[in-house]
Every structure is written in C-alpha cells, then in structure tokens.
C-alpha cells in the first residue's frame, strides 16, 4: 500500500470539513456589513475575511483586524470559531490517528525496507525466518561479511534483530515471506541477489518461498530447510537447489563416524572453526544400540545403524508402532523401559525425542544404568543449551546448528561442499593420507579453507600472466613469496575446470582461465597466496625466481643489460 495514497484517502473527510467551515465563515464575514470609525458602512473583502479566519481558526487570535467589529459580526465570529476549532481538532486527530495506525505504519516500514534493499549494491542473500536456525546463519554470514536481508513473520523477532549486534547494517522486515510481493520487496529479482534461504520452522512456508523464488528468479539458488518427506519430495520436484534436512544430515554424519572414522575426521577438520584446535571426537562404538524416539529423527538414526550392520532396539510410546518386534513401547525416561530395551548390554543410546527434558531424562537414566554407555542426545531448543552442556553427552545433535553449518558452507565456499561430496566416495586410506597432509600443513589446528578463482577480478596478476601465454601452475600458488623454494602451509584439495572436478591436483598442473581451486591451510598461507595472485612482481618471482626491477629507469637499465649480455654471448 502506498503511503501517500493512504494519507490522502484518510485525510479526505477532515479536509472537506475544513473547506466547508472556511467557506461558511468567509461568506458570513463578507455578507455582514462592518462600520468604520466614522460610522459609515465598510464591508469586509474576501481577502480580509480569509485572513481573519486563518488566524482565528488556528487559535492565533490577532484580534479584530482591520477595525473593531459590530455586534452582529461578533455574533457570527463566535459561531465560526466554534465550527473551525472543531474542524481543526478533527483534522489533527485524524492525522495523529493515521500516524499511529497499524496499516499506515506497516506501509511506512515496508516502504523504508524496500528502499533500503534497493540501495544494497553488494551481492546479498534473502533469509526467510529469523528463528533459532536463521539467527545462527545470520550471525555466521555477518562474520564472513556476506550481506543479507531478513524477512520474518514475527515483529518481535524483527525487533530482536535490531538488538542483536551485527557488524553490517541489516535490513529486516516483519512480513510473511510466503507472499510474493514481500519477496519482491526483499529484492529477489534484483541483480545483486545471490540466493534465497528458507529457514522458517513452518515447512509449508519454506515450500511456498522456494516455489515463489524459483518462479520469480529461476537463476538464483534456493536453500530450503525441510524434514517432512512429502515436502522434501515436493521441493525436489521443481529443482530446489539445496534441500537441507538436518535429520538426514545427522544420519549421514553418524554413519560416516561409524563406518569411516578417518573420513569423518577429515570432514570435521574442514568444516570446523578455522584456527581452533581440532577436537577429534571418539567414534561411536560398534555393538547393540538403543534408540529412544522413532520419529523423523529416530528413523534416520536407525537407518544409519542398520546400514552399518548394527542392531538397534527402538523405544517409542506410539501404540501404532507396537506391532514391530524391534520396538519396546514406552517413553524411555523410566529405568524399567530402558532395562527392557537392553541398556545394560548396549554400547550406546540415542535420546532423540522432540522434547528436550525427556531426552535429558533418558540420557541420565541410561548413564545411571550403564556408566560406560555412549550417549547421542538431540537438543531441540537453543534455550536449553546450558543443560545439555552440563550433561556433556558424547554427541549432541542440534538441528539449528547442523542447518546453519550446512547453509554457511554452501554459501561461503560452495567448492568445499563439492569436495566433501567427492570425498564421501573415497576410501579410508585416501582420507588418512589427506588428513596426514593437512596435519603437516597446519599442525593440530582446524585449517582455513578458501577458493581461488582464476579471473581478472580475483587474481589480476595471474590472469595477466595467463593472457600473455605464461604458464602458472598449482605449485606456484604454493610457493612462499619471500623464498620460493619453501612451500606455503597449504594444500590444494580440488581444482574445478569448466564443471569438471580434479581431486588433489598435482603441483605441475597448469592453471587456466576461470579455473577455481580449493585450498586448505593456515590463515597466513591464505594471505600470502593472495599476494601471489594479485601482485605481478610476486607472481613473477614465484614463477621465474627473478625480482622484476621497479620503475622505468631500472627497467630500461635491465633491458640494456640483458641486451648487452646477449650481444656479448
């Protein structure tokens, strides 16, 4: 709704009333004859009548101008004053009511939001839903200096955004992201829009956002949170780019940890917080497991156990499941049920209901029954974080964090997601070797992971060399700018050339224009590599081992010298 039109529409009645009052007042004042000092009749002109009414009606009250009124005039003015004061009071109240009006304020804030979005010149993402997941994603994107705008249906959460500290200025609107006009207002068709993240806790809403975004701007990627199979299938049917199901992701993660510990460590290493020491979790043990809660989460977990050939006893209170012989009916919060499920002999327990307190009760009871049991616990609400930290399970599964990590990885280094996908298909020996090489480069810390794009914007120096037909290899990008014999503390994980991935490219692979190379290593190595990529002199040095002369005179001298040397030879 347009602000101007809304204002005009609402002020129509008060303005008509004012015109009416003024018209009556002026007519009366002009008709009623006045007298001058000598008693001769002196009628009031239209201009003076209007002037008198203007200062009287607005309660300025200069007095009887140009000369004292007759009694009849005063009688009329009395009537007109009452009329006009009512008229003005009505107009001002209508104006104030309009400013306080919900619809009007929504129109104003929507307008301001749209104007701000239009002014965003950097590439940005649209985040729909600022709940637990959304706020985690936003915090991470903000730390990476990736711009975004937020839509959330709850005005309270939008106020929360203003209170949360962000490094960048963030545009947020309390609006229903399901409505296409709000997505349009958030800039889904703007040139700078790089993608849409549908992270609300309403899966149908995420689906609606995904459809709308795909129709309005088919070129941009859509990242969607979904846990219901029907919604997931629906999203997949119109090519939603990334459907993020935290339960499935966790199931795969658990399977990795059970099946391929080295690969699991590699994934943890590459997706952790750079610079922090790597904490390698103990892999979950092989043996019989107990799974409490057989909902969407429980099913994924049981699937992983079965895939690995482990037996899992399920505890669930749902009577419709009671026919299944694997299922022990009950909540799992009581010692009796857990005992029947065989907790005493089990190597591990998964507390995976959708109730945090129940999960904690299950885990604590299980620990009491079997002190050595491996506990996997599901945390549903961020608010209960302190309780889960105090309990200290071997693995704590937090949906919001899984989704947030996945989103941030997909957005910040899409190449890493590609690499991990390929890595899944490699064997343990390969993963152990990559782990060893990373360990060598960065010590025990989590490495930084970055992608280098060979194009004039990201690597001006290299792009120029390639234009001249020079040969730049992956090895050059790993040479130290001050001593090229020394390698930088990083390794090349993946080279992507026109869509074709090359895993762990060798040192002598020559770069081509618009290649993308994924590196992992220390932050220092990343900084130095940027120097090679952007500074022609450094690039020449690592390539040829010569220091190019500075300035015109030195360059001429160098040319003369090489010319003389060539002649002398």
């Amino acid at each position, binding site marked *: 709704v347009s602000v101007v039109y809304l204002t005009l529409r609402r002020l129509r009645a008060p303005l*008509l009333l004012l015109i009416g009052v*003024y018209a009556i007042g002026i007519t009366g004042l002009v008709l009623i004859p006045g007298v001058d000092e000598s008693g001769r009749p002196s009628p009031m002109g239209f201009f003076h009548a209007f002037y008198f009414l203007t200062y009287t009606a607005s309660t300025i009250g200069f007095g009887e101008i140009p000369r004292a009124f007759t009694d009849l005039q005063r009688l009329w003015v009395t009537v007109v004053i009452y009329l006009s004061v009512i008229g003005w009071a009505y107009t001002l109240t209508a104006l104030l009511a309009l400013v306080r009006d919900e619809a009007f304020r929504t129109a104003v804030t929507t307008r301001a939001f749209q104007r701000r979005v239009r002014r965003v010149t950097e590439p940005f993402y649209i985040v729909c839903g600022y709940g637990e997941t959304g706020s985690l994603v936003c915090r991470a994107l903000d730390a990476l200096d990736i711009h975004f705008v937020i839509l959330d249906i709850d005005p309270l959460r939008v106020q929360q955004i203003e209170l949360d500290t962000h490094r960048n200025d963030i545009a947020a609107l309390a609006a229903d992201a399901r409505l296409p006009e709000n997505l349009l207002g958030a800039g889904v068709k703007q040139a700078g829009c790089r993608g849409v993240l549908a992270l609300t806790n309403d899966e149908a809403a995420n689906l609606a956002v995904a459809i709308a975004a795909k129709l309005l701007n088919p070129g941009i990627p859509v990242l969607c949170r979904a846990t219901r199979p029907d919604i997931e299938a629906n999203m997949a049917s119109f090519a939603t780019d990334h459907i993020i199901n935290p339960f499935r992701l966790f199931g795969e993660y658990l399977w990795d940890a059970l099946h391929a510990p080295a690969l699991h460590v590699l994934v943890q290493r590459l997706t952790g917080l750079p610079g922090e020491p790597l904490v390698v979790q103990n892999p979950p043990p092989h043996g019989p497991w107990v799974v409490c809660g057989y909902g969407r989460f429980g099913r994924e977990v049981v699937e992983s156990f079965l895939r690995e050939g482990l037996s899992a006893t399920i505890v669930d209170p749902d009577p419709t499941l009671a026919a299944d012989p694997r299922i022990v009916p009950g909540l799992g919060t009581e010692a009796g049920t857990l005992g029947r499920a065989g907790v005493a002999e089990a190597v591990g327990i998964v507390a995976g209901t959708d109730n945090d307190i129940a999960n904690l009760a299950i885990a604590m009871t299980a620990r009491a029954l079997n002190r050595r049991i491996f506990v996997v616990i599901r945390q549903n609400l961020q608010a209960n974080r302190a309780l889960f930290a105090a309990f200290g399970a071997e693995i704590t599964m937090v949906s919001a964090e899984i989704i947030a990590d996945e989103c941030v990885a997909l957005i910040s280094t899409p190449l890493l997601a590609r690499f991990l996908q390929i890595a899944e298909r490699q064997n343990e020996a390969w993963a152990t070797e990559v782990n060893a090489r990373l360990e060598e480069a960065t010590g025990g810390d989590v490495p930084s992971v970055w992608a280098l794009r060979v194009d004039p914007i990201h690597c001006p120096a290299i792009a120029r060399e390639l234009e001249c037909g020079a040969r730049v290899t992956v090895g050059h990008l790993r040479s130290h700018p001050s001593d090229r014999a020394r390698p930088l503390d990083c390794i090349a994980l993946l080279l992507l050339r026109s869509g074709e991935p090359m895993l762990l490219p060798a040192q002598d692979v020559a770069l081509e224009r618009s290649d993308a190379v994924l590196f992992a290593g220390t932050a220092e190595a990343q900084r130095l590599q940027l120097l090679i990529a952007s500074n022609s002199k450094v690039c020449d040095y690592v390539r040829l081992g010569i220091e190019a002369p500075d300035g015109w005179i030195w360059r001429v001298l160098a040319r003369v010298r090489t010319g003389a040397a060539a002649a002398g030879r």
Partner: protein
Amino acid sequence: MNLEKVIFAFVILLAATLNFGFVYGDIDDPAHHEIWELYAAVVVNLVATVLKLGDRTQIGAVHLSTSLVAVLQLIAAALVWFFAGAQAIEPVRMAAIVSLAAGALFANVVSVAMMVTETVMLRR
C-alpha cells in the same frame, strides 16, 4: 444509484458551471463578472480536488491533475483581483482575471468530459 457517485458528479459539474458563469460576459467589463461567483468557484473546485484525492487509477490521476490546474488558475485570478484593489476595478485587470478563470474553465471542461466518457464507457 450510488450516493457517492451523485455527489462526485454534482461537485464536478458545479465547479464547471460556476466557473462558466463567472467567465460569461464581456471580458473587460466588471459589471459582467461577479466576485461571489469567483469565490464560490474557488471553494467548489477545492472540494472537487479533495474528493479526487487518493484514487490510484490512471483516470483518477488525470482527474486530480485537471482539478489542480483549475484551482491554481482560479487562485491566480483571485490574487490578481486582490492586487487590483477592492474599489472600482480597471478593465485591463478585469480582462486578466477573466482570462485566468477561462483557463480554469477549460480544465473543468476536460474534467467533466472525462467524467462523462467514464460513465458512458461503464454503462455501455
């Protein structure tokens, strides 16, 4: 019958007729032009303008602009009358006032024409 439509048509037509009534007569003869009629034309034109506010359609926008033009011309005419003084008005001044009001009349005629066209198109 819609009361809103009746009032709308009434005001627009009245604005045009009052304007015409003021302009009618010899252009420079003060006896042919009544100040009360000019005053009434200004007031009714103001009302017409406010009635047209807040219509978002294309035709509504053109309606509003015709009224704004008419009001502007009529107020200009009133100002000329004010500067000419309250006493006997010179024929030259009168001609200026009437020609300004005639301009407003043209805008009002456009407004009426649009209203009629709109009605005809709706009641095919």
